[in-house]
C-alpha cells in the first residue's frame, strides 16, 4: 500500500512541513491532555465515580490530535469515542470532560448522554450516536450544505474498522463520491472492533475500496501526529479546491480493551508489545526533545491542569431529576453549530 508519511524537512527553527514549533508542541499537549484525562477518568471509574461504561483511545491519541489540528474554525467535526483530543483541540475544557464522564450538571450533555457520546455544538462538534458509523452520513450532509452554498469549508468524521461493515459506511462513501463533497473520512484502523480482528471484518482493506467510490484513499501512520496533520491538511485542500472527498486510513492499535470492562485477552501479547514501542506520545516527545523543548515541564503543566480539572468536576452537582423530561424538543429557534478553536498557526496567517 502506498504510504505517505510526513518526512521531517530541513530544520528551520524546528518547523516541519506546515507545522511551526508551537504547533508541534500543541499537538503533544493535546495528546498528553487526552491520555492524562483518560487515565484519571479510568481511576475515577474504578472508584465508582463514573457511571456506566468508560472508553478510551489509549495509544491512538495522534489520530484525533493530528487530524483535528488541521481543521479550521468554520469546519465541522463528528467526533467518535477514541478521539478525545479532537474535543481538546476545538476548545472543550478538561473540567467539563470530567463532569461529562461523571454525569454531572456541568458536563457537555448535562448528564443526558454518557462517556464520549458528546459534542459541544458551540465549538462546531456533533455528538456521536452508538450506531456506527451513522455519523459518516451526518458529516456528508454537512459537506453537502457547504457545497450547495459555495462555502470554503469542509466536514470531517472519524470511524473505526468495524463500522465499515455497516450499510451507512457504504451510503456515505457513495454519496460523498457521487456528489464530490468536501468531506474527510478518517478511518481509525486500530486492528480490532471489540474482540473482532480485521480478518473477520473485511475481505479487502477499506482504503482500497475508496477509489471504487470515487474517493482518494491514503494510508497514514496513525501514531504519528504530524503525519496525521499533513494528510488531513492535504485532504482539506483537496476538498476546498472542489476535488472531492478523501478517506484517510490511520493505522494504529487499540492498546486498551474495548472499554474499561474489557481486558482484551483476545489480543496477542506480541502485537501489543510491538505497538507499545510505537507510542504516539513518546514519538512526539522524542522529536521535541531533539529540538530542545522542555517536555518534562509540559508534562508537569498538563498533570497540574488535569488535577485541577478533576477537582473542579468532582465538586460539580448532579443534574436535577425534575428536569429529566425537559429538552426533548427545541422550543425556540434552531441554532446551527458554531465555530470552534483552530490553534494551528497556519489559520492565523502567521505560518511561514
Amino acid at each position, binding site marked *: 500500500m502506498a504510504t505517505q508519511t510526513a518526512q521531517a524537512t530541513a530544520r528551520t527553527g524546528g518547523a516541519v512541513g506546515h507545522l511551526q514549533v508551537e504547533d508541534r508542541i500543541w499537538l503533544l499537549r493535546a495528546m498528553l491532555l487526552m491520555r492524562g484525562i483518560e487515565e484519571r477518568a479510568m481511576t475515577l471509574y474504578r472508584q465508582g465515580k463514573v457511571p456506566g461504561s468508560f472508553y478510551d483511545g489509549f495509544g491512538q491519541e495522534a489520530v484525533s490530535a493530528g487530524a483535528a489540528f488541521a481543521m479550521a474554525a468554520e469546519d465541522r467535526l463528528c467526533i467518535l469515542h477514541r478521539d478525545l483530543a479532537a474535543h481538546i483541540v476545538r476548545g472543550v475544557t478538561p473540567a467539563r470532560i470530567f463532569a461529562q464522564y461523571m454525569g454531572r450538571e456541568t458536563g457537555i450533555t448535562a448528564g443526558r448522554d454518557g462517556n464520549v457520546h458528546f459534542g459541544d455544538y458551540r465549538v462546531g462538534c*456533533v455528538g456521536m450516536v452508538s450506531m456506527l458509523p451513522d455519523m459518516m*452520513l*451526518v*458529516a*456528508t*450532509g454537512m459537506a453537502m*450544505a457547504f457545497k450547495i452554498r459555495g462555502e470554503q469549508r469542509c466536514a470531517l468524521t472519524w470511524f473505526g474498522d468495524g463500522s465499515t461493515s455497516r450499510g451507512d459506511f457504504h451510503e456515505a462513501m457513495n*454519496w460523498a463520491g457521487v456528489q464530490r463533497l468536501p468531506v474527510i473520512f478518517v478511518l481509525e484502523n486500530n486492528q480490532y472492533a471489540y474482540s473482532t480482528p480485521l480478518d473477520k471484518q473485511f475481505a479487502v482493506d477499506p482504503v482500497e475500496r475508496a477509489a471504487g467510490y470515487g474517493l482518494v484513499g491514503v494510508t497514514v501512520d496513525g501514531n504519528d501526529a504530524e503525519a496525521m496533520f499533513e494528510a488531513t491538511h492535504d485532504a482539506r485542500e483537496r476538498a476546498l479546491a472542489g476535488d472531492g472527498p478523501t478517506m484517510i486510513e490511520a493505522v494504529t492499535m487499540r492498546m486498551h480493551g474495548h472499554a474499561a470492562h474489557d481486558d482484551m485477552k483476545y489480543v496477542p501479547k506480541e502485537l501489543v508489545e510491538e505497538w507499545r514501542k510505537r507510542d504516539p506520545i513518546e514519538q512526539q516527545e522524542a522529536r521535541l526533545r531533539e529540538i530542545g523543548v522542555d517536555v518534562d515541564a509540559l508534562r508537569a503543566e498538563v498533570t497540574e491542569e488535569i488535577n485541577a480539572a478533576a477537582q473542579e468536576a468532582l465538586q460539580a452537582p448532579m443534574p436535577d431529576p425534575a428536569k429529566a423530561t425537559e429538552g*426533548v424538543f427545541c422550543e425556540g429557534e434552531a441554532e446551527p*453549530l458554531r465555530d470552534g478553536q483552530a490553534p494551528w498557526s497556519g489559520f492565523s496567517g502567521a505560518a511561514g
Partner: protein
Amino acid sequence: MAPLTYLQAISAALRDELRDDERVLIMGEDIGAFGGAFKVTDGFVSEFGPERVMDTPLAESGIIGTAVGAAVVGMRPVCEMQFSDFISCGFDQLVNVAGKMHYRQGLAVPITVRLPSGGGFSGGPFHSQNPEGWFMHAPGIKIVAPSTAEDAKGLLHTAIRDPNPVCYMEHKHLYRRIKGEVPEGVFETPLTARVARSGSDLVVIAYGAMVHTALEATEDLEGASIEVLDLRSLVPLDEDAILDSVARCSKVVIVDEANATCAAGAQVAALIAQRGFEDLDGPVVRVATPDVPIPFSPPLEQAVLPSVDRIREACHELLEY
C-alpha cells in the same frame, strides 16, 4: 383563496417555502428531473435548480442522515421517502440521530420528512403502510397528518418551520381525490385537532384518509348527532380536544388505517380510559386494520382496511349500548 387538490396544496407549500427561505432544500429519489413519483415537485427543478431540488442516490439512510448534517449547519432540508414504507431503511438515522440529538446535545435538527402513506389501490405490502406508530414511540420526533387540502398546506409550512424533526404523513389516496379551498401565501396550521363535524351523541376520532371515511359513514346514521374529530397532529397529540369531545359525546369510536396494535388510536384510547373515564357512557371502541401486511388483491385489501360500513356498524352498536 383557490380550490386546490391535496397534492397541489403540498406542491404549493413546497414552492412557497423554497421561494421564501433560501435555507430550504428538498431532497429525495426522482424528485428533480422526473418531478417526483407522484409529480408533487413537477417543474420545480427548472425554477429552483438541481441543487435545491436534489435527486439523491437510492439511499434512505443517506437521505435522512445527510439531511441531519445539512440541518445542523443551518439549512432546512425537506426530505422525501418515495413511499412511507421505505422509512424503515432510514429508521436508525431518524430515531437515533435526528430524534435524540436535541435532548442529548442541545443541538436542534430542523428536518422535515415527507412520507406518502396509506393504501386502497392495490399497492401491496410495501407501498401501502401507515408507519406513524413507530415514530410516535420515538422521543424527539413530531408527526402531522393532514386530511384536507388546506391542512396539507398549512401543516407542511408548520412542519418545515418547526425547529425539530417532523414526519409529514401525506396520504396518497387523498392526493387527487380531495379538493378544497386553500388560502394563498404562507400560513401555519397549529398542531391541534380539528372538529370536522360537531355532534353530541358519539364522536369518531380519526386522521388522514380515515377522516373522510368517517364523515361518509356517519353522515346519516339513524338521525344521531355524530361528531368527527380530525386529530391532524399525532405528536404532539391534542389531548384537550380529545377529552373535550369525549366529555360532550361520552361515546367514542377511534379509527386507524394503520395496523391495530400500537397504532395512534391505541394511544388515544389509553388517554381516554385514564383521563376521560368519568365521561364515558360505553366502552372505547376501535376500528382498525388488523395486524396483517396490506394485501394486494382488491377484495383482500378492501376486507382489511376500515370501510364506511365497518365504521357505520361500530357507531350503530355503540349508540345502542
